[in-house]
């Protein structure tokens, strides 16, 4: 007997993609995550543009994580130019990234992923039974939006980030009104961690290679070395010596692999597992109270990890605002020079790699962007294979639900990956 389970348009993920699972004689024979959103050719758009334009052009790749694109691009350019952004400007970059994590994670935890665990088709249905919970999620997201707008000029596609710093910087008194809101958000985030910790999680713990930035002193946003739980420890500019992208016929997004090892896992779980010791003790305690240890392999528990990162982002925002002193200059200047620069920052969905080559006039000759959803594609397919194999006994609608949930564990952003869902489950 053979059978195909297919979901033509995966819901509650960003962008357009589909999933095919083919089953023959009670064996899963094929799993394909198909991304059919057309390629967007951003790397080609960048050629011929000034190096200063990269943060604003690449921000347009994604409406939910534009800050990540801006951060990876400015860090790549600054590496190339020999600029070192420090002090309050560096802190402001962490602050705007906190805002993006709060809004992106808040949306995914409450509106896109929680309905899976509670048995609702979507957040609107969930809101009928959990109105106060949904209100909490919306307010959290809104506070994240507000933080991004405050530092970045507006909440979607912020306009204030530039190579060397910012076009303008907030005064201390501009940031202070956020304190009470962020204290509310910190309490709400703690409630979120406790709430998602009560969900039921399928008992799966695959063996993954978790890849993320690691910085000696801080939970990573913008800086550090790229590390994994399997011994990877490289400088950012060594990325392409260890990772490569592959064309796969059934998807418009490239698959990214670690050379000679294959699939790997980026995102909140990777950051958490590689950097647990760098979380404040209160955040560690909240994670442990919710059932996590210092290392989490169950991808379904990513909803707890995301909530832990919301809590961290709130704490970190409060710390930054408390210690903030307005810098004398909003940005550092540098004359263009020919060279190649690399940047990796931690987007909400994981490590985001940028490389640029510019000429002595500062014109971009070549650009390469490797977004987190591309990097996770092979791992998502591997998870789906395991989920399908372990749950073939389930009725088709339940198996389909579980497969979609497994995809949403990664909060995939298909729009980013093509710079991706439908499920097709085929039984023969």
């Amino acid at each position, binding site marked *: 007997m053979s059978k195909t389970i297919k979901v033509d348009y995966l819901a509650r993920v960003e962008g357009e993609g589909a999933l095919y699972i083919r089953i023959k004689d009670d064996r899963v024979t094929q799993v394909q995550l198909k991304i059919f959103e057309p390629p967007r050719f951003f790397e080609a758009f960048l050629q011929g543009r000034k190096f200063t334009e990269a943060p604003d052009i690449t921000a347009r790749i994604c409406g939910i994580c534009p800050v990540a694109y801006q951060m990876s691009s400015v860090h790549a350019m600054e590496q190339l130019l020999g600029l070192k952004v420090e002090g309050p400007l560096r802190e402001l970059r962490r602050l705007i990234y906190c805002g993006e994590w709060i809004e992106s994670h808040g949306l995914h935890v409450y509106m896109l992923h929680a309905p899976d665990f509670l048995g609702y088709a979507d957040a*609107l249905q969930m809101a009928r039974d959990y109105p106060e919970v949904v*209100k909490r999620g919306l307010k959290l997201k809104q506070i994240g939006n507000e933080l991004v707008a405050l530092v970045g000029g507006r*909440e979607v596609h912020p306009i204030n980030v530039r190579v060397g710093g910012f076009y303008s910087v907030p005064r201390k008194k501009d940031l202070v009104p956020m304190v009470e809101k962020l204290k509310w958000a910190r309490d709400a985030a703690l409630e979120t961690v406790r709430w998602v910790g009560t969900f039921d999680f399928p008992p799966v713990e695959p063996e993954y290679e978790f890849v993320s930035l690691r910085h000696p002193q801080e939970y990573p946003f913008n800086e550090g070395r790229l590390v994994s739980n399997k011994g990877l420890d490289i400088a950012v500019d060594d990325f392409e010596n260890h990772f490569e992208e592959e064309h796969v016929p059934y998807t418009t997004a490239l698959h990214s692999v670690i050379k000679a090892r294959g699939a790997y896992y980026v995102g909140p779980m990777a950051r958490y597992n590689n950097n647990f010791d760098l979380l404040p003790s209160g955040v560690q305690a909240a994670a442990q109270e919710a059932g996590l240890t210092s290392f989490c392999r169950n991808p379904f528990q990513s909803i707890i990890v995301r909530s832990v990162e919301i809590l961290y982002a709130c704490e970190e925002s409060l710390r930054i605002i408390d210690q903030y002193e307005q810098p004398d200059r909003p940005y550092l200047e540098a004359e263009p020079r020919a060279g190649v620069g690399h940047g990796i920052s931690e987007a909400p969905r994981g490590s985001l790699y940028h490389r640029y080559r510019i000429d002595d006039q500062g014109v971009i000759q070549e650009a390469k962007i490797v977004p987190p959803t591309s990097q996770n594609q092979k791992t998502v397919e591997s998870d789906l294979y395991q989920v399908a194999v372990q749950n073939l006994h389930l009725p088709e609608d339940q198996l389909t639900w579980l497969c979609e949930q497994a995809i949403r564990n990664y909060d995939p952003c298909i729009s980013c990956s093509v710079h991706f869902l439908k499920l097709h489950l085929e039984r023969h």
Partner: protein
Amino acid sequence: MLVIGIGHDWRGDDAAGRLVARHLQEQPNDLFLVREMSGDAADLLNAWQEAEAVIVVDAIHGPAAPGTIYRFDAQAQPLPAHLFPACSTHAWGIAEAVALGRILQSLPPTLIIYGIVGQNFGLGTGLSPAVAPAIPETTQRILKELECLKR
């Protein structure tokens, strides 16, 4: 009272809601506040808590001629999905905000939505000739509506 103009300045007729908001901002008044927003659902639901009466203006896709002005009483009816389609799961918009606000019982007592049918949503600034006259007309209709709401 609060008027919210939604849209994007650099996507042709999508700027219509913001342009109406700017016309209203120029009117001397102590009746209403004006805000421009990107249209994110969480931000809209939050802003709606600020006033008893809210009027939202946005550009829409529609079967009617470009420049056609629609008016909906969001307290009385859901927004028609064919005029306010979901564009992205990661960016809930006005229709989702109204639906969620209704379930959460957090819609303002008065919530009026004006939709201006756009023609060109491509890159660049400037309104289509067929859409431009709808800006002053919608502004005048909203001013009259605000006067009625005051009473």
